[in-house]
C-alpha cells in the first residue's frame, strides 16, 4: 500500500466548508503520514465528521485543496476517490448478504467472480468472520456488523481508511475490545487511517496523532502524550481527561525554579518552557492523578507544595477513588489510585494535597 516514499499520504490545505452561514470547517491544514492513525476528536458539532466527509468527497469544499498521495482530489466525486469509509451506522446494504456487501466494490469494478470470492474469503478471515458470509446484516450483532463494514472498506485497498465514529453504536465492553482490534489491524496492515470520535479516551488509546477540534478549527495537533500532558489551552485541557486549574502569579524567578502564588499558598515549581517574568499571571494545569493525598495528621518530610483541604465527597470507582476536595474556596479533584490498599478517605476528613514540582503552565487568556 505504502509506496515507500516519505511524502504524506494525505494533505489538507486551508480546507473550509460552510453550511449556509455556519462555518463547519474553518481553514484547516493538516497532513497525515503513511501508516499512521490520526483521530479527529472534539465535542459534537465541532466539525470533525464534516472534515472527514470532505476527504471522502461527500462534503464539497468551499475553499482549499485535498491532496491524496500526491494527487489533487479536491473536485473528484466520492466514487472516484481512493478512500474508503466505515460509517457510524455501518451502512451495510440490508438486501445483500455479508459476502455481497464485502464484494460490492469489487463487483462495481467488474472483477471476475473467482477473484471476488477469494478476496471476500480473505477479508472475512481478516476480520474473524469466517463462515458468516451467507448471513444477512440483520442477522448479525452490532460488533459483527462493524467487522463487515470494516472488511467492505478494506476490500478496495484504499489509500486511506476513514472511520466515522465507528464504535459509538457498540456497548462499552465491546467498544474497548473493538478499538484494540482496529488498532492491531491498522498496525499489521500498515493502514493510513483517519478515525473520528467524540470519546476522548477512545481517541487517546487508539491514535498516533490527535487532532483536537472545536467550532470548526483545530485547537491542537499532537501525540496523545503531548495533548494530555501539554494541552495548549484550557479547552484542550478540559476536553481530554479531568483537570484542575490553579490560576496564580509568578512572584519570584531563580534559575530553573520559580515561585508561583495561588490564593494563599506559594508553590515552588519548574519554569515553563516559554519565557516568563515576575508578575506574569499563569494557570497551573494539574491532572487529578498527579496530586498526592494524605490525611492531615500525617507529618510530611517535605513541606513544599502542600495544600490543606477537606474531603467534600468521595466516589469509589474501584480502580481509583475520585475525591472532591475543598481547598479554600477552590474545588480540587484528586484521583487516588489503588484505594483498596491505601485506605479510603471519609467525607469531611481533613487532608493534605501535595503537588509535583513540574507543572504544566498556561498563559492566562483574557477571555
Amino acid at each position: 500500500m505504502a509506496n515507500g516514499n516519505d511524502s504524506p499520504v494525505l494533505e489538507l490545505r486551508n480546507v473550509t466548508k460552510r453550511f449556509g452561514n455556519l462555518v463547519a470547517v474553518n481553514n484547516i491544514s493538516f497532513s497525515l503520514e503513511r501508516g499512521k492513525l490520526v483521530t479527529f476528536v472534539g465535542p459534537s458539532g465541532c466539525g470533525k465528521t464534516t472534515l472527514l466527509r470532505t476527504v471522502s468527497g461527500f462534503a464539497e469544499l468551499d475553499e482549499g485543496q485535498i491532496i491524496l498521495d500526491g494527487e489533487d482530489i479536491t473536485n473528484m466525486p466520492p466514487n472516484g476517490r481512493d478512500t474508503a469509509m466505515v460509517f457510524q451506522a455501518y451502512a451495510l446494504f440490508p438486501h445483500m448478504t455479508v459476502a455481497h456487501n464485502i464484494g460490492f466494490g469489487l463487483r462495481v469494478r467488474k472483477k471476475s467472480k473467482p477473484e471476488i470470492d477469494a478476496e471476500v474469503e480473505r477479508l472475512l478471515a481478516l476480520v474473524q468472520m469466517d463462515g458468516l458470509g451467507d448471513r444477512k446484516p440483520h442477522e448479525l450483532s452490532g460488533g459483527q456488523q462493524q467487522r463487515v463494514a470494516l472488511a467492505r472498506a478494506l476490500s478496495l485497498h484504499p489509500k486511506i481508511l476513514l472511520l466515522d465514529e465507528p464504535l459509538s453504536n457498540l456497548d462499552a465492553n465491546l467498544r474497548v475490545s473493538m478499538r484494540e482490534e482496529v488498532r492491531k489491524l491498522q498496525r499489521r496492515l500498515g493502514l493510513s487511517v483517519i478515525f473520528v470520535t467524540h470519546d476522548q479516551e477512545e481517541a487517546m488509546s487508539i491514535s498516533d496523532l490527535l487532532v483536537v477540534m472545536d467550532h470548526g478549527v483545530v485547537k491542537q495537533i499532537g501525540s496523545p502524550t503531548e495533548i494530555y500532558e501539554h494541552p495548549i489551552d484550557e479547552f484542550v485541557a478540559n476536553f481530554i481527561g479531568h483537570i484542575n486549574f490553579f490560576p496564580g502569579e509568578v512572584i519570584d524567578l531563580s534559575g530553573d525554579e520559580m515561585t508561583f502564588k495561588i490564593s494563599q499558598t506559594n508553590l515552588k515549581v519548574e519554569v515553563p518552557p516559554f519565557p516568563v517574568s515576575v508578575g506574569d499571571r499563569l494557570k497551573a494545569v494539574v491532572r487529578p492523578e498527579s496530586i498526592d493525598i494524605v490525611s492531615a495528621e500525617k507529618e510530611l518530610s517535605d513541606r513544599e507544595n502542600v495544600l490543606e483541604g477537606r474531603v467534600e465527597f468521595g466516589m469509589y470507582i474501584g480502580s481509583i477513588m475520585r475525591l472532591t476536595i475543598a481547598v479554600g474556596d477552590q474545588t480540587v479533584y484528586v484521583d487516588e489510585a489503588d484505594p483498596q490498599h491505601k485506605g479510603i478517605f471519609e467525607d469531611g476528613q481533613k487532608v493534605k494535597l501535595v503537588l509535583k514540582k513540574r507543572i504544566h503552565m498556561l498563559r492566562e487568556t483574557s477571555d
Partner: protein
Amino acid sequence: MSLSLQNSFLHELASDTRHFLRRPGLAALTSVAVILILLFIVFPVGSVLLKSFTVTYPTVTVRCQSKVSNRADFKELVTGPILGAIRSIEGVEETRELTDEESSVVVVRFRRDWDDLRGLNDIKRAVQKLQGTFALSVENIKYELGQETIKSLATYGRFFSKSYYYRALKNSIVLAIVTTTIVVFVAFCFAYLGLHGPGFIKAPLRVLGLLPLIAPPFIFALSLILIGGRMGILTRLLHLPFNLYGWPGVITAQMITFLPLGYLLIENVLRSIGSHLDEAASDMGASGVDILFKVTIPLSAPGILKAALLVFIMSIADFGNPMLIGGGVSFLATDAYFLWISENNLEMAAVFCVFLVLPSLIMFVIHQYILKGREYTTIGGKPQQVEERRISPKIFYPMMAVAIPVALMIITCFGMILIGAFTKILMIDNSFTLEHFQSTNGLRSLLTSLKFAFGAALIAPIFGVTLSYILVRKRIPLKRVVEFMALLGFAVPGTVMGIGYILFFNSPPLKLTGTFIILIINEAARNLSVSLEAGVAKLHQIDIAIEEAAIDMGASSFRTFTRVVLPLISSALAAGFVYTFMVGMIAVSAVIFLITPGNNLASLYILAVAEEGFLGMACAISVMLIAVVMICLGGLKLLAHYTKTTIF
C-alpha cells in the same frame, strides 16, 4: 406436528377468551365493534358471494281445487293431463306436482331469463284446452307467478362460456397490469426526481404528483374526452382518424388518477432509504446508475411492490374512468353495474363481483400479510447535514423524459376542466359563459355530498381509531380475524360493496336501502381501514409505558384511554377525518348503487351529466367540487392552526 400446532392455537384462543371474558367493559365494546363490522362489511360481501352461487328461475304454479274425493282419480283426471299439456310449452324446463287431497298443484319452472308473463299465458291457454275434459272434477283453477332460487354453479358456467362475460375479466386484469406498470414507473421517476433532482424541478413535481388527489377520480377521463374524444380539441383540430375512447383513454386516465397513490408510497420508500447507504455505495466506487440499480431499486423493491399491489386493486375497482371513456370496452366494475341496472341480472352481476373481489383480495392478502415487515428498515446514524448528491445525467434525462410529459398532461387536464367549465360547447360554440355553474341540481348535489362526506368522516375515524386501540393494546381472541374483516371494506371494490349493500339491506328487519344513512354507513365502512391503520401506526409510536404510567397512577382503563391515549392519537383521528372527507366528496363506485333520486351526490351527478354529453356542466360542477374540497381543507387547516393541533 400439526396436532401440537393446533393445540397451541386452541390453547392460546382459550386463554385469550378467558382473559377477554373477565373484562366485561372490553368484551362489550369489542362485541359491538365486531357486530358492526359483520353487519356492514362482512355480511354484505358475503351476500354477493352467496348470490353468485344461485340461479333464479321464473315459475308458474297451477292450482286446481278438487271436486272429487278420490285422490288417485284426481291425479289421473286432472294432474296428469295438465302435466302432459304443459310439457310441450316452449321455455319449460321442469315440472313438479305437489298434488294433495284437495287440490292438484303443478309447479312449472321456466328457463332462466324466460318471460314469465308469456309463460303464464302459454300455460293458461294449454290448461283451458283441457277444461272440457276435467270440468267435473275441478272446482276452480288458480295461477300464481313466482320465482325459484336454486344453488348452482350455472352462472359461473355461463360466465366462462360466453366471451362477452369473461372478456370483462380479461380486460380488467390486462388494464390493471398495464396501468400498474405505468403508474409505478412514472411515480418512481416523479419520486426520485422530487427527492434527488435539481432544486428547480423538485417542488413542481411534488405538487403535480399529488394534485390529482383532490380531483374526483374520473375528472381526467372527462378532460381527456374534451381533448381527444370524438369532438375533442385535438381530434377536431388535427382531424385525427381515431379518438381516445377505449383502451388508450382508460389507461391514460387511470395513470393520472392513481399517480398520487403510487407517488406517495414510492416517495415514502425512497425517503426511508438512508442517504448513508447511497454514500457507502458511492464510497465503494459505484456510479449514480450503479447505485440506482444495485442499491436504491433493490432496497425499495418491497415498498414498490406494495405500491403496485395497491394501484392494481384500485385499477380493477375503478368505476368512473371506464364508465366515461371506456368506449364500449367491457370491464368488470362497469359491466357489473350495467348487468344490475339494465338487465337486472343479479346473479351474473354477483359473479362479476366475485371476479372483482378475487384479484383484489389476493393482492390485499399478499400486501397485508406476506409483504408486511418485509421492508428494509435502515437504521440511521445521527442526522447528518447531508449534501445532496448531484444526480447523474444518465439518470436525470431519461427520468425527465418520462416525468415532463406526464406533468404537462396533468396540467393540461386541469386546464381543460377550467376551460370546459367556462365555454358554451367546446369546439362548437367557444364563447365564454357562466351558465354551466347555474345548475340547481348540481348545487343541491354538492350540498348532499358535503353532508354525506362529513357524516362518513365523523363515523369512520372514531370507529377505526377505537378499534385500532383494541387491536393493538388489548388481548382479544381471534385478533387477526377481526382485523382482516375490518380491512375487508377497503380491499373489496366499491361495486361489490354497493351490490352487497343492496342485497343485504333490501329486506326487513334491516331494510335500509333508499335511506341517506345507508350511503354514509357504506362510505364509512369502505374507508374504515384508513383510520384503523392510522390509529395502529400512531399507537405503535406511543410507548406503552405512558399508558402503564397512567394506570400506575391509579387511572382506570377507560380514563387512561380518554385522558392519555385519546389526546395522543388525536392526530390519527384527524388524519382519518380528513381522508374520509376528501374521499367521500369524490366517491363514486359503491354509492352509485345506493343513491335515490333525492339524494344524488355531486360526483355521481357529474358522471351522469357527462355521460349524457353535457360536458360543460360536468366541468363546472367538478370545478365547484374541487373548490369546495379545498375550501373545507383550508378551513380545517385554519382551525388546526388556531387550536394549535396538527391535522395534516
